[in-house]
Structure formats: structure tokens, C-alpha cells
């Protein structure tokens, strides 16, 4: 190292000033420093603990439509200067993007969502012994001859982010997060249940591994003994909130991003203000929800975030845009520019997805019978948002018969076209799951099924 590392704010300021000194008029600097602790456990014991201490600067330069993105993780003065000079050299030979019109200009009001920073999580990060011990005792308690924790992954983190550009934006925020993921199976000789997952995450509290494993164990044991059943080609299925969110993200979620609008790959491009889903369906993007994983005061380009209804009673109200795709499409940024850290240029993503609940209770739907409850559709990421076609293994799945009898189906093949199927038959429950970046009900749709 040739000289001392700068703190994040100084590094961002230096990058802005040095770019301007070189005569570059369009500059955007994104800096982040994060500390993260990752605990992995399986087979009833802690396997590894990892501590990351990372910082880096991402830079976008614009010279008359020639745009280049670059990043560095060396934050001393001379490294930052030479990084900018090298990026500038590349900029001059970069291709022109005729649709690039500059970086986000300061406007709008910034509101910080409540509870996005937790001193408790920050403290646990510097002294994780109690958390490690808690996870150790929980996984050890749950490991048994017929139930296994294949993988428990817990992550705690604290991040500081700064975004600044030549159009006057200079914003900073500190956030924390704590997330947990468990992957479990029930086993009996060569009999295996399908894998049962539970995931949770918050900015203001640490998920409880005991509750998550208890829930997973109940489902895994319930799906251990599968029964062969003759099913008709089409059947009513109820997707859990997590299961439906995976399907939603891979279909509607992608189709309603500004990039799909601009690239003409969204089937809803010409349908703003029209009915694209049944009336039971209202979807909100809410980056201001207290303590949720996707809550943040500004987006990856420095635009303020705000709550917006994307689909209201089935009617398409807006697409989600960052500044770049918004200006190409003739819309304002909706504050949905996203970054996967300092190593990637801004894309577009949902923040927290909230699907409004309905009136019917899950219990009532199950009691009525002739319905399959599907935990999640494995492989649903292969769904085609352009068409709505999807298919995968509904796993685990249970058949609810009239009179309350339940049969474990293990995994079933589930497929269809969500844009079509949801219109044909859509019921959403009053019961909701609120965790991670989702708040959603159970949803009943018609699908093609086949037992594997």
C-alpha cells in the first residue's frame, strides 16, 4: 500500500473532485463499506464462521454518451487517482450509447424508513460468541435420527453506503441486516422427504433459528411418507406465500421492470392502465416498510425511494424504473435502481413486495378439500416472464381431501401459464406471511399437475 486508506466519505469526495479536475463532466461515485459475519452449520454442529470487512468504490463516467463503469477496492489516495485516470482513458474509446442522457438529478424528498439500523445487530457483529453458541445449541437440539439440518446459514451485517454524482446528489445511509436460511430433510432409511427450506431476514432483528427449524421439521416429517395418487391433469393448487413470491418474481416481477419495458420483452408494455391480473390481485412495492430487508431511503443512483402500488385490483399502474431506463421510456425514476454492492452497475429491482390479503381463511380452503398445498415450486426461476410459462417440482406437496384427510405427495410436477391461470381462478387468503422482503397471502390457482 503506497499511502494510508481513506475513510469512505473522503474516498468518494476525492473521486468526485479528481474526476472534475480531469474535465469529466458526468461522474457518479458509489462507495460502500460493510462488515458481515456468516455462520454455517450442519449435521448438528457449527461448520465455519466467516468475517468479511469490505470496502470499495464504483465509478460511472459519462462523456457525451460514452459511458464506462469500473470499480476498485483499493481506497488510498494514489490508487483512487490512478483508478480514475485509467477509467478515463477507457472512456474515450468506449462506444456511444445514444440513449444515455446523464445521471440522476437531485429532486424529490428523501424519507428514511424506520428501523433500518439496529445497534443490537451491530453489537452482535463485533461480539458474535452468544449468537454462535445459540445456533450451535439449536442445531444440535434439532439433529435427530429422522430429521436433519442440511444447512443453516446465518448472516449479520452492517453497511454504510454513499452515493454522489456531478448533478448534486450526495447521500449516505447506514443499515444493518440479519438473515437466516435453513435447509432440512426428514429421513427414514432410504426414505427421504423433499428438502424443506425456511428463510427470514430483517434490518432490525435477528430471526429465531428455533422457530424456523420447528416449522421446517413439522413440514419435513409431514412429507416423509408419500402416497401414490392418481391426479387429473388439472387441479387447484394453493401456493404458500414464499412459493408464490418465487413464481411472482420470475414472471410478473421481471415483466414489470423498466428494462423489460424498454427492451420490449415485457408482454405488458402496452398495457398500462389495463387489467393484467384478476381483481383479487394488488401488489405494492414498499421500500419504506419499517425494518424490512428491502427498506432504504435512496436507491442505487441516489433517487429517493417511495411506496407505490404497481398492480391495483388487477390493473397495471406503473412499471419500476431506475433513472436510465426511466428516461428512455419517458418516465421518472421510481427509486428502484439496485446494486449488488460496489462491483456492479445499477440495475432495477423490487424493494419489498407486498401482496394485499383477501377475505378467505387458509383453513377454510383446506377444509373444502380437493386442493393441493404446494410449499414451493423448485426450479421456478426457469419461468419465462416474456410468456408467463412456468413449470417445476411442487415440493413438498400435500393433497387435502374433503373431510379433512391429508395425503403427502412428496414432489409433483406443476406447470402452466401464470398470466392465464391466475385470471381463470384466483383466490387469496386473509392469512399472510411477513418476513424478509415479502408480505403476502396464500394464493389458489389452477395448474397442470402430475405426480413424480
Amino acid at each position, binding site marked *: 500500500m503506497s499511502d494510508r*486508506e481513506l475513510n469512505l466519505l473522503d474516498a468518494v469526495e476525492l473521486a468526485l473532485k479528481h474526476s472534475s479536475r480531469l474535465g469529466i463532466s458526468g461522474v457518479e461515485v458509489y462507495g460502500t463499506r460493510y462488515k458481515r459475519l456468516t455462520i454455517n452449520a*450442519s*449435521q448438528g454442529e*457449527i461448520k465455519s*464462521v*466467516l*468475517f*468479511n*470487512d*469490505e*470496502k*470499495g468504490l464504483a465509478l460511472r463516467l459519462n462523456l457525451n454518451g460514452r*459511458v*464506462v*463503469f*469500473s*470499480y*476498485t*477496492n*483499493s481506497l488510498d489516495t494514489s490508487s483512487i487517482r490512478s483508478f480514475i485516470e485509467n477509467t478515463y482513458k477507457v472512456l474515450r*474509446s*468506449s*462506444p456511444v*450509447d445514444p440513449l444515455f442522457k446523464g445521471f440522476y438529478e437531485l429532486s424529490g424528498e428523501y424519507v428514511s424508513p424506520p428501523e433500518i439500523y439496529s445497534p443490537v445487530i451491530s453489537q452482535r457483529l463485533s461480539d458474535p*460468541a452468544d449468537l454462535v453458541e445459540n445456533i*450451535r445449541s439449536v442445531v444440535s437440539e434439532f439433529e435427530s435420527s429422522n430429521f436433519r439440518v*442440511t444447512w443453516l446459514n446465518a448472516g449479520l451485517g452492517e453497511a454504510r453506503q454513499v452515493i454522489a454524482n456531478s448533478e448534486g446528489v450526495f447521500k449516505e445511509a447506514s443499515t444493518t441486516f440479519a438473515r437466516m436460511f435453513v435447509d432440512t*430433510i426428514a429421513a427414514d*432409511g*432410504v426414505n*427421504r422427504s*423433499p*428438502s424443506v427450506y425456511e428463510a427470514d431476514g430483517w434490518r432490525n432483528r435477528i430471526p429465531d433459528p428455533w422457530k424456523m427449524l420447528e416449522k421446517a421439521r413439522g413440514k419435513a416429517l409431514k412429507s416423509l411418507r408419500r402416497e401414490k395418487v392418481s391426479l387429473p391433469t388439472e387441479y387447484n393448487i394453493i401456493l404458500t406465500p414464499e412459493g408464490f413470491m418465487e413464481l411472482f418474481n420470475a414472471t410478473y416481477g421481471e415483466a414489470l421492470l423498466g428494462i423489460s419495458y*424498454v*427492451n*420490449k*420483452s415485457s408482454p405488458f408494455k402496452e398495457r398500462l392502465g389495463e387489467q393484467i391480473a384478476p381483481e383479487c390481485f394488488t401488489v405494492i412495492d414498499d421500500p419504506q416498510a419499517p425494518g424490512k430487508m428491502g427498506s432504504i431511503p435512496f436507491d442505487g443512483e441516489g433517487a429517493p425511494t417511495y411506496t407505490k402500488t404497481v398492480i391495483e385490483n388487477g390493473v397495471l399502474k406503473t412499471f419500476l424504473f431506475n433513472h436510465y431506463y426511466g428516461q428512455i421510456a419517458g418516465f421518472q425514476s421510481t427509486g428502484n435502481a439496485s446494486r449488488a454492492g460496489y462491483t456492479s*452497475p445499477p440495475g432495477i429491482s423490487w424493494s419489498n413486495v407486498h401482496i394485499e390479503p383477501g377475505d378467505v381463511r387458509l383453513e377454510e380452503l383446506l377444509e373444502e378439500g380437493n386442493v393441493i398445498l404446494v410449499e414451493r415450486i423448485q*426450479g421456478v*426461476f*426457469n419461468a*419465462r416472464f*416474456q*410468456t408467463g*410459462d412456468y*413449470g*417445476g*417440482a411442487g*415440493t413438498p406437496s400435500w393433497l387435502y381431501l374433503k373431510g379433512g384427510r391429508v395425503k403427502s405427495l*412428496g*414432489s*409433483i*410436477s406443476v*406447470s*402452466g*401459464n401464470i398470466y392465464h391461470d391466475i385470471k381463470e381462478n384466483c383466490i387469496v387468503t386473509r392469512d399472510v406471511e411477513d418476513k424478509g422482503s415479502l408480505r403476502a397471502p396464500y394464493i389458489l390457482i389452477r395448474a*397442470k*399437475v*402430475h405426480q*413424480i
Partner: protein
Amino acid sequence: MELLSDEFLDEVENYTKGFSCGDYFDIRVVSESGRSLRMENGRVTTNKLYREKGLHARVYYNGYWGSATSSSTDKENVLKTLEKACIIAKSSSTPTTRKRSLGNHKIVESIYGWPVKRSFDDVDLSAKISDMQVVNGILESKEYVRSVVVRLNEWVEERIIYTSEGAKVREVKPYIYFAAMATGSVDGRNVTAYKNIGRINGYTLFDEIGPEEFALQIISKLEKQAKAKSVKPDKYETIVSPDLVGTLIHEAFGHLAEADFVLSGSLLKEYRGKEIAPDFINVRDVPEVSQGFGNIKFDDEGTQARDAIIVDKGVVKEFMTDRERAALLDQKPTGNARSESYRVQPLIRMRNTILLPGDWSLDELIEDIDYGVLLGTPLGGEANLDGTFQVGIQDAYEIVKGEVGEPIRVSSITGNSIDMLRHSVGVSRNFRVDYGFCGKMQWVPVSSGGPYLRVAKEGAPSLGAV
């Protein structure tokens, strides 16, 4: 584009002299420099250039791993990061010693650079963009195509691994990856198709087929999808194409044979040493294969990589391992510990996972099928420890009276990998590998491949029809 000096391995050894904590430690330094280009409907929307390096220190203390990372690789930080890893390992351990072994290990000292056929620096940016434009132009020339995205990623990755046992390894790989996706609408039916290519020898993307042929293969898939007819979601006598065999062998079977999953309850554990398939079924995960995108000489623990003989003549032989799990399973390490970057710990990951070819021709495999399906190119997939799998499908065809017939609409297939292999009828002599990335918590380049495989209806995957 290499970022670390030849002397750096010796420097790391000197930095850590005198450091002691637990039973073992290792240092992994990864440097990477590269460029990513993204073209959307003919416009270059991303021109990304980067260089980074960082280090990952691991300490093994009483059978527990503690790790820490840093983006600075000077002497002060190497030691600071090791000390942090030591503190974490100690705080993860329990007062009761859990004695685990990393096993007896061959200490390797080696430096290897994968041969570069054509350096990235020898090809102008304009020539790279021109290749992308050729693909884009051919796809956009079809009036039914609405959207085209073309991506080109090239990067040189250098890894050095130094272990407290004395292993010193350095490996340099010049990766390139190219992919294109087109979406359109034919007679009101939406269609979308994708193709990719990956290499580890510099800018050699179009040595076998030119960008024109690359684009035409995507168009062929789009047009087949447009004509495809519906089929009942069911099981059929099935021929699986080499590309799909590779994906199935990776997703549906390979993950079950990764030692971390084996020890956590994978169904395959129960079948070690037992016959699960006919004797023409041979499954390997190999560190080197012609055109393999998952080729490695050493893994991220400094282990010399070797073939993992997963299934030999239908019998489950061994699993893919890192050092700790090889010792637990009483196996020799296979060199499957891989990581995405210096920021994360190595996990057991596949390299090039293949089903070995047999001696049938494709015609012989098909000729007595009265009605069945030929499953073509895959999208991604996912597997479950009970053997259940799901793979997305781009193109599929019916087989009628021994002949490949019309395209059919299949969104995905679901099945059970053990059932599928058990009911295999034969494998062809044609053999092909494909390229991609595996996303088990982290992304690493891999290849997979095989011959055509015939599966009896009983064990065939169910078609997810739309």
C-alpha cells in the same frame, strides 16, 4: 493482465513465518481483472472494466474453521486477517475438543497458467463489439423478434494458495463467456431462446462456429417453439440430448454426490458401493476435459485435482470432496473445494461433470420407439436431496415410429435422478460438453456433458407442459 508478481507466493510464506494458531491455516489470494459488455437491441448499455484483489485467511482450530477476508494484501493485512480468522475459529470452537483431521495430504508446489490461444488484449474492443453486433443483427433481422440481449464477459483470474503445511500453488485462467437471448412473438405466441459459449483460453469464442451460426441456432429454437404443439403432461419413452444429459448429471445427480450433501443426508450415501444403474452408466466429475469451462489444476485448498469416479459400471464408488470431508468419508481428496472469490469460503463444487459415452448410435437408440419424446436443450435446473429434480427445457420433439417428429411445448421436466438412471436403456457414442455457472450459494464456472441417453417410460421425467 496478471496482477500478482511471481515472487508473491514466497512473500506470503515470509509474511506468515512465526504465525501459529490451531492445527492448520491457509491463505488464498485472488486477483481478477476483466471486462463485461452488455448489448440491448444493438446498444452497448454496459461497458464494465475492473481489477480487484483480496485475500481470504482460514484457520482450523480444534476441528472448527474460522475465516476472515481483506481487500488489502500487504504484509500487515495478511497477518491481521490471519489473526482475525484465528479469533473467529477459537470463538466458534467449544471447550470440548472436536478432533477432526484434514487427512494425510500430498503437498503441492506448482505454478500453472492455462495456455492462451488469443489474448484478450490482442482483440480490439471494436472487434468484440462487432461480434456482438453480428449476433444481434441476425436476430433482430427477424421481424417477429422484439428483444435481443447479448453479453460478453472476459476475465483473467489468478489464484494463489499457501498452506501452513507448505503447499504453494498459483494458477492463472483466462475465461471468456458469451451469451445471447432473443424474445419475440409469432402469430400471437411468445417465444424466447438462449445460447451460450464459454472457454478458458482467451478470445476463442468463434473458432468452431462463427457468430452467424451462433445466432442462427437461436433462431432455429425460436421457430421450433413457434410451431410446437401441446402435449399431455405425462411420462414418455424418452431420449435425452447430450446438453440436457449434462445438466441432469450436474443438477439431478452431481449435487447428491457432493460430500457436504452426502454427509447431510443425500440419498446417495445409502448407495455407496451399491448398484444403482445398468453397467453402461459411468459418471465422473473431472478436473480437465476438452473445452471444459470447469477445468482446474488445483482446488482452493491447494489440492491437486483428480477425477472423481462417482458411478462406475452402475455402482456408486466415491463422492466429490474437500479435505475435511474426504477424511470423514475415508476417501482421497478429489480437489473439489472451490470458491467464487476471495470473499467467500470454498465449498464442495463440481468442475466438469459427465456421463461417459457408450457405443450406440442415435438412430439405434430411437429406432424401436413407437411414441416418445426427444428432450433438447436445457435452461437451468435444481435438485433436491431426495433425488427430485427440475430442469427448464428450450426445445423438445415427439418421436413417432422411430423417427424424430414435430416440436412439442415443454416448459420443464421433473423427475427423480435415481429412478432415471436405474431405468436407463442405453447411451450413444456421440458426446458433447456444455458450459455454464453453478450457483450453490456462490457462482463458479462449470461444464457438464454426455451422450444421448434413452430412458424407459417408467423412470423418465414428467413433462411440464404448457
